[in-house]
């Protein structure tokens, strides 16, 4: 059964709200890998985190995080997107709002809820009804011309993450040119280059999140 079935534990009617951030981006760009890399950083910093995944057809990402050992499995909720990954983060984010509300209620003192969008295309953007701030993850292996295509996700996100920089030499991408172009199309809005598997620049992403939504830290 669905793990979002209403809980039977009593929950306070007016939970204090944790900050909510979104992580969107194309299929396989490294959204879950980024979350896996961020969780230990937040743990070291003493920040209480929970995750909502929007897997497309299975609870694959939610299960992967639950089994990872880097987060209490109860802090990971999966929301089914009814084959509409765009809708569930933008036009009708109600189920994600509900999931974040549920996490707020279940974990007093929760500070940050990370909502991972299902893998989608460059047009996906988060509703500000759902999140306070959001990241869009693209990757080098998806092609050096991705920034030039000026997808709404690439342009509108609060932080653009260009992941898998370790792969640039193997996929014929000129990384400096790609980052330069990304900076240009974003008019100078924040951008970070990462290699999530190797742990490169993850601290910088965590710093950006903390500065944006956890300013007290």
């Amino acid at each position, binding site marked *: *059964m*669905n793990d*979002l*079935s*209403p809980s*039977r*534990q*009593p*929950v*306070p*009617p007016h939970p204090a709200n944790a900050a909510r951030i979104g992580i969107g981006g194309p299929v396989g760009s490294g959204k879950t890998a980024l979350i896996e890399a961020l969780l230990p950083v937040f743990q070291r910093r003493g920040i209480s985190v929970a995750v909502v995944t929007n897997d*497309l*057809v*299975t609870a694959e990402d939610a299960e992967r995080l639950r089994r990872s050992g880097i987060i209490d499995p109860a802090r990971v909720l999966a*929301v*089914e*997107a*009814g*084959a*509409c990954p765009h*809708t*569930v983060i933008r*036009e*009708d*984010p*109600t*189920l994600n*709002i*509900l999931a974040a*509300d549920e996490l707020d*209620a279940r974990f007093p003192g929760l500070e940050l809820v990370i909502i991972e969008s299902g893998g989608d295309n460059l047009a996906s953007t988060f509703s500000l*009804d759902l999140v306070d701030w959001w990241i869009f993850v693209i990757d080098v292996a998806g092609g050096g011309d991705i920034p030039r295509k000026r997808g709404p996700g690439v342009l509108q996100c609060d932080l653009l993450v260009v992941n898998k920089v370790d792969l640039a030499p193997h996929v014929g991408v000129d990384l400096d040119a790609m980052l330069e172009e990304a900076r240009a199309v974003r008019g100078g809005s924040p951008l970070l280059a990462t290699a999530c598997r190797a742990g490169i620049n993850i601290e910088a992403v965590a710093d950006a999140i903390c500065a944006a939504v956890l300013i007290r830290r």
Partner: protein
Amino acid sequence: MDASALLLALRFGDTAFPSGGFAFSQGLEGLGAVSGARPDTDAIAGFLTEQVRHRWGSAERVTLVQCHRGDGDLDAIAALDHDLDLSSFSEPLRLGARRNGAALLATHLRLGTPGAAAYRARVADGAAPGTLAAVQGLLWRASGLDEASAALLAGYQLVTGGLTAATRLGLIGALGAQQAMPALLATVAAVCAEPVASDAEPVGFSPFSDIAAARQARLPLRLFSN
């Protein structure tokens, strides 16, 4: 129906009104697993007709109408809400109804609809299940939608939700869905023409839907919440 009631029903019935409904197939996603074949338009229409007549019409609709008549009396509405929840045999459909209701409440809470905050607190405390039908009755009454329109709207959403789910599952096209629509809406109208007695009990019996929903819950790949 006067202009304001029509506009209100259009507003709440539009997918632009966020209520999370698009993520539920009410068992339709499990239909193929039950029948052993890819469901065609007739199979989908038959499935939805059974739900409209034998589950929604005789159970959810009864609760919705009675909760609407409850006119904001939260104790009465919670009792009706419990009755419907207890009468729902299928676990995926029962839990789906609660989650659907919670989603609709979450939206109305943020819109400031009278009664939404107080009822959500009851649901959060475990004092009410918050089934979709009960929540619709409460919130649509509080929003000024009349009883008849409220029932028709809920029936319309059941049909259109099922057909859009079928479309997203690739079982029918959007035009095929519209071709199936008139007969299904006629069924909704016929069911809604049956009066709801003040002491009526919700009595749904739709074993085929229940089995489909049970199969859906066990599918290795699922697009929908139920």
